[in-house]
C-alpha cells in the first residue's frame, strides 16, 4: 500500500491536514484509532475565544474547514471584547459536541483523494533520514512520500485522578504506547506535558434559579467569510454563571494532598498549562481571591451533559462530589463524568522548521498537541499549515510561512519553533506584537491571497475576495470626495451627538475619524450602497488609520531584522563571547535570521549584538 501523504490522528489538526492535502489533489490516507472519534471535542464545548476566534477566521481565509464546521455546529455565538476595540475582538461559539464531529466526518468522507482507516501506528519507516511510511500495530506497512503526525494527547497517555494513574486516552480510548519511544530512537527530544478537563453534570440536576444567565449576541455572526447565518437569534442556547465560595476553597485546601498534581501521585513529570490552570492551582496561586467564576456550558442539544468551565481538577471522585455540591446552584448536581488530568508525550517544537517539517527527518511533519500546544484552534491551524506544506514539498514548491505581522498562525508557529515551550502553549492576543494588523475583520484581506496561491481557495471565492477589496477602495474614495457643509442643521445634529460643530466643509472620510461618528450618522445625509461588511471594514481602516500606520512601521522594523539572514552553516562554538545559555539556545533553534534570534528566550540583546558583529565581520573573513 502506498499513498502520497499519510496523516496520523483524526483530531482537529489531522482533519485540517488531511483535507488540505486531499484538496490539493494528493492521494491521502487518514489513520485514526477510532473513526467515531474524528474531530472529537474532549474538553470545552466551544470554538473560538480571545485570539483563537481570529485563528478560526484565518483558517477559513486560507481554505481550511474549522470555521465552516463551527458555523454548522454552533448553538450560541458572541463577539468577545466588543467594547475594547477592533484589534481584540474575537468570536466564540458554543459548539454542539455531536454535530461538530458528525459534520466534519461527513466532509472528510465526501472529499476526493481522501481515505480513512482505523488503526494504530506503532513505528515509522525511515531511510536516509527521509520518511518512507508507517508500521501499524498489526505489523502492516503503509508507504508514503510525506507523513503528518497529529497524535494529540494520545502518545503514552495517562489519565490521572486522585492517586490513580491509568494508561488510556480521552474517553477511555486506546493510547499510543510505542510511537513516542520510536520517535525518541529516531533522535527526537520528547517532553511530558499535562492538561486537564472539568466535570460534566446532568442538566436537570442544576438549580438554574440560583445562576446568572449568559446569552449569545443579538446580532448575527459567522466564522466563515463564505457562510451566511443560518440560525435564529432566539434559538440560541444560553450559558449560566456560578461562583466558587469559601467552602469550595476550604475543601480544596483541606484535600490538596489528594490531588494528583499536589502529591496524590509522586511520579508526575508533565507540566500543566499556565494559562488554563486547574481549580487547585487557582486556589493556591490566588489565595486572596474569595471566589472564582465557573461557566455552565451545554455540551449538546442531543444529551444533557453540562460542562463546568473553570473547574478542571485531578482530585479523587469523592472530593469532586464535595467540591461541586459546595457551589450555589449545584447543591444537588449529579456528576456524569468526573474531572481528570491527562499526561502525554510531545516533541520539543524547536526541532521543527517554520514549515512544521521536522529538522531531522525529511518529509515528516507534526502538528497540534504533539508540538506542545493546547486548544482545538491551535491544533487545527497547525494541521492546515502542515498539510499545505507537506503538499507543497511534494510539488517541489517553497513552503507557506506566515509572518508575525500576517497572522496569529504565524505568531504561533514562530513562537513554537523559536522559543520552544515549557507548558502547553495557548495562543493569547498578548503574544502578537502587531495585533492591530491581525484583526478578526481583515483575516481574509490578509490571507485569502495565500489560500488562492496554494490552491485551497477556488476561483469563485477568490473573485468574491477581489470584489471586496475593490469595494473597500471605492467606498473610501467616495468618502474622501463627498463633503458635508456646515449648515445650521448639520451642526445641530453634530452637537446632539456630542461632536464639535463644523466651521468649514469636511470630507466624510475625515468626519468618520471622530470617535463619536459612525456610518449611520453620515448616512443621514448620504446613502452608500455597500454591504455592512464593507462599511465595517472601511470604518475600522479610517478610524484607526494612525495606529495602523504605527503598527505597520513597527512590523517593517521586524521584517528588516528578519531579512538579516544567519548563514545555515554558522558554528556557534566559534563565537566565543556569547553567554553559554544563549549559545545553547541558538544551537538548539538554529534561527534563520537575526529577527528570529531576537525572539529566542535566553538570548539577550548583547548576544544578538555579538552575533551580528560576528556575521558581519568574522564569519565573512572565514569564508574568504
Amino acid at each position, binding site marked *: 500500500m502506498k499513498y502520497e501523504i499519510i496523516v496520523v490522528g483524526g483530531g482537529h489538526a489531522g482533519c485540517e491536514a488531511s483535507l488540505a492535502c486531499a484538496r490539493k489533489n494528493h492521494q491521502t490516507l487518514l489513520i485514526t484509532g477510532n473513526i467515531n472519534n474524528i474531530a472529537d471535542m474532549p474538553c470545552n464545548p466551544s470554538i473560538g475565544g480571545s485570539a483563537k476566534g481570529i485563528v478560526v477566521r484565518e483558517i477559513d481565509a486560507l481554505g481550511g474547514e474549522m470555521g465552516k464546521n463551527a458555523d454548522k455546529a454552533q448553538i450560541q455565538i458572541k463577539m468577545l471584547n466588543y467594547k475594547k476595540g*477592533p484589534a481584540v475582538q474575537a468570536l466564540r461559539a458554543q459548539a454542539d459536541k455531536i454535530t461538530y464531529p458528525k459534520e466534519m466526518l461527513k466532509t472528510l468522507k465526501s472529499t476526493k483523494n481522501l481515505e480513512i482507516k482505523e488503526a494504530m501506528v506503532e513505528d515509522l519507516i525511515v531511510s536516509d533520514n527521509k520518511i518512507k511510511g508507517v508500521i501499524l500495530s498489526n505489523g502492516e506497512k503503509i508507504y508514503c512520500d510525506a507523513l503528518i503526525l497529529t497524535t494529540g494527547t494520545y502518545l503514552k497517555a495517562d489519565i490521572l485522578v486522585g492517586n490513580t494513574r491509568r494508561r488510556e486516552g480521552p474517553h477511555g480510548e486506546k493510547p499510543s504506547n510505542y510511537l513516542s519511544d520510536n520517535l525518541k530512537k529516531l533522535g527526537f527530544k520528547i517532553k511530558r506535558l499535562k492538561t486537564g478537563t472539568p466535570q460534566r453534570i446532568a442538566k436537570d440536576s442544576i438549580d438554574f434559579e440560583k445562576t446568572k444567565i449568559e446569552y449569545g449576541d443579538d446580532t448575527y455572526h459567522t466564522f466563515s467569510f463564505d457562510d451566511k447565518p443560518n440560525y435564529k437569534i432566539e434559538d440560541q442556547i444560553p450559558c449560566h454563571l456560578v461562583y466558587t465560595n469559601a467552602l469550595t476553597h476550604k475543601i480544596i485546601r483541606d484535600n490538596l494532598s489528594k490531588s494528583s498534581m499536589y502529591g496524590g501521585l509522586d511520579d508526575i513529570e508533565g507540566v500543566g498549562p499556565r494559562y488554563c490552570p486547574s481549580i487547585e492551582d487557582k486556589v493556591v496561586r490566588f489565595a486572596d481571591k474569595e471566589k472564582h467564576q465557573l*461557566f455552565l456550558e451545554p455540551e449538546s442539544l442531543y444529551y444533557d451533559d453540562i460542562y463546568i468551565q473553570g473547574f478542571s481538577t485531578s482530585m479523587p471522585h469523592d472530593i469532586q462530589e464535595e467540591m461541586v455540591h459546595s457551589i450555589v446552584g449545584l447543591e444537588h448536581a449529579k456528576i456524569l463524568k468526573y474531572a481528570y488530568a491527562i499526561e502525554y508525550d510531545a516533541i520539543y517544537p524547536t526541532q521543527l522548521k517554520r514549515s512544521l517539517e521536522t529538522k531531522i527527518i525529511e518529509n515528516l511533519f507534526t502538528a497540534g498537541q504533539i508540538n506542545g500546544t493546547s486548544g482545538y484552534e491551535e491544533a487545527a491551524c497547525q494541521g492546515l499549515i502542515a498539510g499545505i506544506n507537506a503538499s507543497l514539498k511534494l510539488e517541489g514548491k517553497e513552503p507557506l510561512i506566515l509572518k508575525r505581522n500576517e497572522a496569529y498562525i504565524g505568531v504561533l508557529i514562530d513562537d513554537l519553533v523559536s522559543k520552544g515551550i515549557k507548558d502547553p502553549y495557548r495562543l493569547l492576543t498578548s503574544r502578537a506584537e502587531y495585533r492591530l494588523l491581525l484583526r478578526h475583520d481583515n483575516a481574509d484581506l490578509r490571507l485569502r491571497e495565500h489560500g488562492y496561491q496554494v490552491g485551497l481557495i477556488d476561483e469563485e471565492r477568490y473573485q468574491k475576495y477581489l470584489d471586496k477589496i475593490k469595494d473597500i477602495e471605492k467606498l473610501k474614495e467616495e468618502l474622501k470626495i463627498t463633503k458635508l457643509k456646515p449648515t445650521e442643521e448639520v451642526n445641530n445634529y453634530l452637537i446632539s451627538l456630542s461632536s464639535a460643530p463644523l466651521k468649514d466643509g469636511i470630507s466624510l472620510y475625515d468626519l468618520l475619524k471622530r470617535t463619536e461618528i459612525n456610518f449611520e450618522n453620515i448616512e443621514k445625509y448620504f446613502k452608500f450602497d455597500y454591504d455592512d461588511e464593507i462599511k465595517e471594514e472601511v470604518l475600522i481602516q479610517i478610524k484607526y488609520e494612525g495606529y495602523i500606520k504605527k503598527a505597520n512601521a513597527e512590523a517593517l522594523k521586524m521584517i528588516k*531584522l528578519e531579512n538579516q539572514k544567519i548563514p545555515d552553516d554558522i558554528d556557534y562554538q566559534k563565537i566565543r563571547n556569547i553567554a553559554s545559555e544563549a549559545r545553547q539556545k541558538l544551537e538548539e533553534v538554529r534561527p534563520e535570521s537575526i529577527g528570529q534570534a531576537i525572539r529566542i528566550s535566553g538570548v539577550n540583546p*548583547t548576544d544578538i549584538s555579538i552575533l551580528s558583529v560576528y556575521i558581519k565581520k568574522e564569519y565573512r573573513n572565514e569564508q574568504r
Partner: protein
Amino acid sequence: MDTTIAAISTSLSPSSISIIRVSGKDAISITNKIFKGKDLDKVKSHTINYGYIVDNDEIVDEVLVSVMRAPKTFTMEDVTEINCHGGIIPTKRVLELLYLNGCVPAEPGEFTKRAFLNGRIDLLEAESVMDLIEAKTDEMGAIAINQLSGQVSNMIKELRNEVMDVLANIEVNIDYPEYDDIEQITNKKVFDKLNNIKDKIEIILKNSENGQLYKTGIKTAIIGKPNVGKSSLLNNLLEEEKAIVTDIEGTTRDIVEGQINLNGVILNLIDTAGIRKTNDIIEEIGVNKSIKMIEEADLILYLLNNNEEITENDIKLINEIKNKNHIIIINKIDLENKLNIDNLNLDNVIKISIKENTGIDDLKNKIIELFNLNKITNKDMKYLTNARSISLLRQSLDIVNEILSNNYEDVLIDMLEIDIKSLWEKLGSIIGETYDDELIDQIFSRFCLGK
C-alpha cells in the same frame, strides 16, 4: 576576537607618564617578550611589576607593568598596562615594539567594545566610559562612574517595570474577557498610572539637564560696550581659576576663549576672542551680532560702567537678555556713580570693581545660585548625562504626552496599548534592552582610540 590589541590610552602630550594598554589572549606573553624584569608569564594577576622595555638589548624606557588576567579585567580578557616614563618618543617606540611582536592597533573604542561584547558592561555603561574619558572635572567623572556602576540603568529599569505592569494588566483583561475577577483596568486607571510615569520622566529629564551642564559646561558670553572692563573681567576670572585650556575649538563653531571651573562645572567663555584684540566689540560687530551671541549663550554677563550714563544700546540689549540666565555687572564701583538704572527694574545685579578685585566672589555665587550648582551633588546623581540617552528619554516623554493628550473616555484600550508598548521599547533602547543594530554601530564609532 582572536587578536591582541594595543594603544596608548593617555593623551599623547609631554606629560610625565603615558600608559599603554594591551588586551587579548597574548597580551601578557607579548609584553613579556619586550620586558626585562620578572617573568610576567609567571607573576600573579593584578600585580604591578617594575622593569625595562628593551629592544633586543637596548633599553627603551623604564616602566611599571600592571598584569591583569582574565576574566577580572575591564575587557574580560588578559590585560597589561605599561606605564612609560620617558615622554612621547619612548612611548611611541614601546607601542611599535608591541606591534612588531604581534599586537594590532586598537580600533576607535575597541577596548570598550570588547568589554561590551564580552558581557562586562551594558550599552549605557559603555557610553559612560566615553564620558569618563572625556571628563574634565571630578564631578563629571563621578557622574560617569555612577552610570558605569549601573545605577542609571536601574532607574530606567524601574520605570520600565511600571510600564510593564500597566501593559500586563491591559493584556490580561483582553485575554480573559469574561473573568471579572481580574482587575478591570479602566482607561482612567491607565491614565493615572501614566501621569505618574510622566512625572518621573520629567524629574529625570530636569535633573539630566543639570547633569548635562557638567558635561558640556555653561556657554557664557561677556557683553558690554567698549572699555567697560570685559577683558579685565575675563582675565580676572581666568587667572584666578587657572584656565584649563585656551583657544580650543568647541563642538559648535564658537571659539571658546577660556574655561573656568566653578564648583566643578565648566564655564565656557564663548566668542570673546575679539575682546582682548579690539576692545571695541559693540562698535565693531554691532548690536545685531551681540543679539546673536545672546541667543546662543546659556549665561550672559552684561557689563555696565558705574562711571558712565546708560546708553540706548545698553537698554536695548538688556531687554534682549531678560528671559535668559543673565547677570548684570556694574563695574568700576570705585569710581563716581553716574549710572542711573533705578527705573529699569533690573534683577540679578552685582556690583564689582575689577581694579580693586571686589565683588568677584559675589559674581561667582550668583552664577552658582542661578544654575543651582550647589544643589547638584554627586552623591545622588541619578540622571542621564549623554545626549543619546536624554534624547531617547525625551522621546519617551513625547509618547506619554501623546497618549495623555487623548480624552481617556474616547480611546480604546487596545489602541492605548500600542503606544504604551512603544513607550516600553523606547525606554529599553536607553539601556540597550531593545536591540538596535544601527545604534550599536553609531555608539562604537564615537569611542576614541585607546579605551
